[in-house]
């Protein structure tokens, strides 16, 4: 028996599974005929245990490739294993951008749907689900095509379910038209969390894209100081010279694991200070390339190695507008307990969609990268969970690696609705993952 070692992007644990790379739907169906504990995996960018299945079968979706012709209306069908990077390389030169993009291009379309990913434009455009016309997936009961018209229940249950409704094979979605490969960006440096939150609450509606980087290490009146960047696609008229070339591969990479303590409160504080001071106090309509603006993380390949052997986790939660003080309480708890957070990203969400396990809900979301190490960290995050539940919010499963099943159920009250759909298409409970087992989502 040879099993392959796999980890999530946060590299906090190693899991062993049989890894197969099916080429077509019948190969996936064959796996269901013989195996249990099956889960699909794309490029492994979910941070925790969503694409792991210890002792089970992990199906890589990377052979499920192929990009169809892009229609005049921007509609395209792509294999679930196609990455955003591969899709953008084809679409940008033709004047099309993905309707929603994660902070990295290295995610597959299947993974993007499974996590129901959001981007800097959620407050305007919603998550990826809003732009998907139909999905093709192989469930344990057979292959199906689903859409808001055909088996809407399964269609919506798939968004945010982290692969537990079946193996996605292709996605049909509508792309966004662009005239250039530049974004016009307004930047503002804000002195504290209150300032950035009110700037976003008042001004975000004027921008298609908006995100703030928050310093969780500064205290006192500078607690939560932030750099707010907002923008829109540049039109041909906005620029002297415009082009539609596709993004380039990363030139920098991290060749080996850094020592585990490299990112500690001292170094992170120094880095944050530099980053904050390097941003302009106020700047308008600065042209930035699509990749600089949307995919800063792709500048350095294998950057997760910076966190060393012990790995790191990301805590991302959202809370409704009425609970905006929870964001303040979270930043306060983290900065006072001196848990180093290298990157904290704040943004506003628009309305939630119909998916029972979809993450975004209207209000605020804050995402924090935290190295694993301090022995108080598990308890601090458990306390954050309680803040989030009390506020009527939830944490994002694509990032999670440590939530408890009880707290998950409190955050996702439509859990039983989801499980009913899963029971229908997976009566033998063959779709599973380490995350599903941890959060009690396999079904009984």
């Amino acid at each position: 028996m040879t099993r392959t070692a796999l980890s999530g992007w946060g590299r906090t644990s190693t899991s062993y599974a049989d890894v197969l790379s099916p080429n077509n739907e019948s190969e996936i169906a064959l796996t269901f005929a013989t195996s249990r504990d099956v889960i699909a995996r794309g490029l492994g960018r979910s941070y925790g245990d969503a694409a792991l299945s210890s002792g089970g079968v992990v199906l890589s979706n990377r052979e499920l490739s192929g990009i169809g012709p892009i229609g005049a209306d921007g509609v395209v069908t792509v294999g679930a294993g196609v990455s955003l990077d591969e899709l953008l390389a084809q679409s940008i030169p033709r004047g099309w951008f993905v309707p929603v993009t994660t902070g990295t291009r290295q995610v597959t379309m299947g993974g993007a749907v499974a996590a129901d990913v959001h981007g800097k434009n959620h407050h305007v455009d919603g998550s990826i689900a809003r732009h998907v016309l139909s999905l093709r997936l192989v469930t344990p009961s057979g292959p199906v095509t689903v859409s808001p018209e055909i088996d809407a229940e399964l269609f919506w249950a798939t968004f945010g379910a982290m692969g537990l409704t079946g193996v996605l094979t292709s996605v049909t979605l509508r792309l966004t038209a662009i005239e250039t490969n530049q974004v016009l960006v307004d930047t503002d440096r804000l002195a504290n969390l209150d300032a950035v939150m009110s700037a976003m609450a008042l001004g975000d509606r004027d921008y298609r894209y908006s995100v703030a980087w928050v310093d969780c290490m500064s205290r006192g009146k500078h607690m939560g100081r932030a750099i707010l960047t907002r923008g829109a696609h540049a039109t041909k008229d906005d620029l002297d010279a415009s082009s539609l070339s596709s993004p380039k591969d990363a030139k920098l990479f991290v060749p080996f694991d850094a020592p585990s303590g490299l990112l500690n409160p001292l170094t992170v504080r120094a880095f944050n200070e530099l980053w904050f001071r390097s941003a302009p106090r106020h700047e308008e309509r600065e042209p930035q390339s699509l990749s600089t603006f949307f995919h800063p993380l792709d500048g350095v390949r294998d950057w997760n190695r910076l966190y060393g052997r012990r790995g790191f986790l990301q805590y991302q939660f959202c809370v409704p507008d009425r609970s905006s003080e929870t964001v303040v309480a979270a930043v306060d708890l983290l900065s006072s307990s001196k848990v180093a957070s290298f990157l904290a990203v704040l943004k506003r969400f628009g309305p939630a969609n119909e998916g029972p396990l979809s993450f975004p809900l209207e209000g605020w979301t804050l995402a924090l990268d935290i190295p694993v190490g301090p022995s108080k960290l598990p308890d601090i995050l458990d306390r954050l969970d309680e803040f989030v539940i009390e506020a009527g919010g939830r944490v994002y499963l694509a990032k999670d690696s440590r939530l408890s099943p009880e707290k998950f159920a409190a955050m996702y009250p439509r859990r039983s609705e989801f499980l009913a759909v899963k029971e229908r298409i997976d009566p033998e409970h063959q779709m599973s993952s380490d995350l599903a087992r941890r959060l009690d989502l396999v079904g009984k």
Partner: protein
Amino acid sequence: MENAFGQPQTLIVLGGTSDIARGLTKKLAAARTHTVVLAGRSQSLLDEASQEATTYGAATVDTVVFDANDVTDAGRVVSECFDKVDDTVDLVVVAIGLMGDQFEKEDDATLAGEVATVNFSWPVAALAETRRRLVAQGSGRILVISSVAAVRVRRSLYLYGGAKAGLDRLCQGMADSLEGTGVRLQLVRPGVVRTRMAEGLPKVPFTTDVDEAVENILKGLANGDPVIWSPPILRYVFMILRHVPRSLWRRVMDR
């Protein structure tokens, strides 16, 4: 399924009534452990320990009674524990130990043999079945409570220390055998811990209380150290003590 901090959701403890085992079970139940199976010698002590686990947050606690002198029964005991969990087993703790008075036992064939059986043969048999079940499952951890007494055996405790030494070395080999299976084995080498078992032992430096030992074990679970020392400084103390000449070792350790 255990989480990114190595906090298990399901737990089996062989020797579940020992002080260290109870301390650990409490802490794990307070964190993420919802299903616990405690195996031990006395039903009344097991009931006490399971009550405690429930109080600290475990939703389901079951018990299995066994006699660690009966090696042929070890497979049945482990099997029953796994069946009672009826889910992925995240952590199996082997916390079986018998110390007693060395001088009473060292010239008694029956009593000396018993120390070896309880501290070595029974745990080895139980580990064999545990290994089989976890490897088939493809995940899980085994935590074996060894002792610093196993690192260098001393005159006044050679029955216990020798049996633990056998278990300790065997586990190092077993840990290597698990590479690539998804299962991990971690050894714990505590110094003297203020427990019922250690009552009457002479006072030595680096003695800890149960809570401190448990904290060190939890840290080890979180960071995956193959050998967890408690207190951690003992790792370095024994680097030296391991190589002290015998005459000096006898004088220092067995005054």
